[in-house]
């Protein structure tokens, strides 16, 4: 979804207050009307949802994904506001190697310290770019952070008690994909693909005001796209029955492709995906590794959030490229470590 930012045309002073008034009346009034209508029709709406088990399950899954993601989104947004407001630009110049080619692996490895799922890392990566971090390094961080942090790797170890090599394979393959994507961006990426959304000018404000303005902007923005992604994921969850997968498990190539696509469509949190992978027991370990490497890097809610935070031109190139690189590297890692 394109995010167009139109500058409000400058008006003569005497007209401005009136325009301000009518426009303001606009969205708040619409909001109030929607809410009143929903409170009035609350009972029939809720009853209608309960009538259809599919719709009811859809609502449960959608609300669950949102509730689960909310702490990660809010803390990610708060951290990105801290980066935007309190960490001076000069810090990043000192912390990361000068050469962008070296900054990429350093930023990827730094993902270890962010224990969260993918919803939080999108606004953080956006904030890093705004503060002058080279986009390639910020992207390597974006891909690595949700996949290689200690919580996710511990969850993987718990889900695969008989296969400790799965943890090593997941960590190694994810880090390699993140670094390769960073380097690819250095060679092929174009700065104009990334269009960070217009953000309120923070410079004229006090630090406190700037912090809250940044939080508000990011929650509304990234959160709105998270809703779209969560809706898509809930739809897949309800529409695709588990039986379909059974028929694909026998073929080594098809099973890799099937689980890669499933990871994209299901959009499960990286902290939980290992348990889902473990229950896909009819699939080979390599295809399940692909599921675990692809999921935290490319999925519906991430694509939606990336389109919102970095622009659609970025997302249509970056997501498919990451998917292809992740499938290839995870399959190779699986061949080496898991067979």
């Amino acid at each position, binding site marked *: 979804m394109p995010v167009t930012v139109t500058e409000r045309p400058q008006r003569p002073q005497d007209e401005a207050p009136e325009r301000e008034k009518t*426009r303001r009346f606009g969205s708040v009034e619409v909001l109030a009307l929607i809410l009143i209508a929903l409170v009035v029709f609350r009972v029939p*709406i809720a009853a209608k949802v309960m009538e259809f088990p599919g719709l009811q399950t859809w609502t449960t899954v959608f609300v669950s994904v949102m509730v689960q993601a909310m702490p990660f989104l809010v803390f990610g947004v708060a951290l990105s506001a801290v980066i935007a407001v309190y960490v001076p630009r000069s810090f990043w110049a000192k912390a990361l190697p000068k050469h962008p080619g070296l900054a990429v692996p350093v930023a990827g490895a730094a993902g270890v310290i962010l224990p969260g799922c993918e919803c939080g890392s999108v606004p953080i990566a956006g904030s890093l770019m705004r503060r002058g971090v080279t986009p390639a390094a910020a992207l390597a961080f974006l891909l690595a952070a949700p996949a290689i942090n200690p919580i996710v790797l511990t969850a993987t170890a718990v889900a695969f008690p008989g296969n400790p090599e799965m943890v090593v394979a997941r960590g190694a393959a994810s880090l390699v994909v993140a670094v390769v994507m960073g380097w690819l961006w250095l060679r092929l990426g174009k700065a104009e693909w990334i269009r960070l959304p217009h953000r*309120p000018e923070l410079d004229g404000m006090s630090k406190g005001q700037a912090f809250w303005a940044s939080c*508000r902007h990011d929650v509304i923005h990234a959160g709105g796209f998270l809703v779209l992604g969560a809706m898509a994921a*809930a739809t897949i969850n309800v529409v695709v029955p588990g039986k379909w997968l059974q028929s694909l498990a026998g073929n080594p190539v098809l099973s890799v492709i099937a689980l890669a696509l499933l990871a994209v469509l299901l959009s499960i949190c990286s*902290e939980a995906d290992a348990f889902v992978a473990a229950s896909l027991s009819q699939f080979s370990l390599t295809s399940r590794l692909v599921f675990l490497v692809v999921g935290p890097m490319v999925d519906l809610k991430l694509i939606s959030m990336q389109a919102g935070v970095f622009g659609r031109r970025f997302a249509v190139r970056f997501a498919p490229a990451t998917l292809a690189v992740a499938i290839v590297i995870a399959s190779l890692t699986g061949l080496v470590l898991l067979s």
Partner: protein
Amino acid sequence: MNRLAQGVILLLLGGSVLRATLGGDQIYLRYVKESLQPFLIGAGVLLCLTAIMTIVNEFTHQKHEDDGHGHHHEPRVGWMLLAPVLGILLVAPPALGAFAAGRSGSAQLQDANLYPPLPEGNPAQISLLDYATRAIFDHGESMRGRTVKLSGFMSQGPGGKQVLTRIMLSCCAADGRPLKIGMEGNVPEGVRDDQWVEVIGRYSATTEKDPINEGDIPHIEVIEWRPIDPPRNQYE
């Protein structure tokens, strides 16, 4: 969407997260693990603070914004945040039940290698996961001569027979996987799907395969059963 509307939406969002977490009916347990509660409270408080600061700033810094440099055109996608608010406050859908369980393969069980004696009491109250692991990997050895009490809801199992079911979560309902236990002996009759029942029974050596994912479904020999209200936390 202007900033005031954004502030209101943030307040609704934060408020609904706090309502789900702190409300007496604890509806957040229908969607996520109990351990997420402190983080949900933190997130809800931060959202409300952001909303309050937005609304306060909007009223106190009116002049500053009106000098022709105000950028009020914020993305329409922010309206989508009303969807989870409505989902929580108006619909508050129930925990996953028979519909979801009937479409997903049985959870993958793991051999615990060590099976301590059952808890005190005859029948001993244990979870479906505990029963299934003892039945599949320990072949019921640790349950020999004992009766057990299980609670779960009814759903359709293999061959259209009802199974005792409980959904296991790792994070949220999107990753829920059902645990299914087949029943024989004095099986519950005339019970609709999604109804919760408590079953007292003993180990049965029968197992079958879930046609959805070839997962193991152990059986229990039911001695007696009764319908019950759903427990506070419906997941395992």
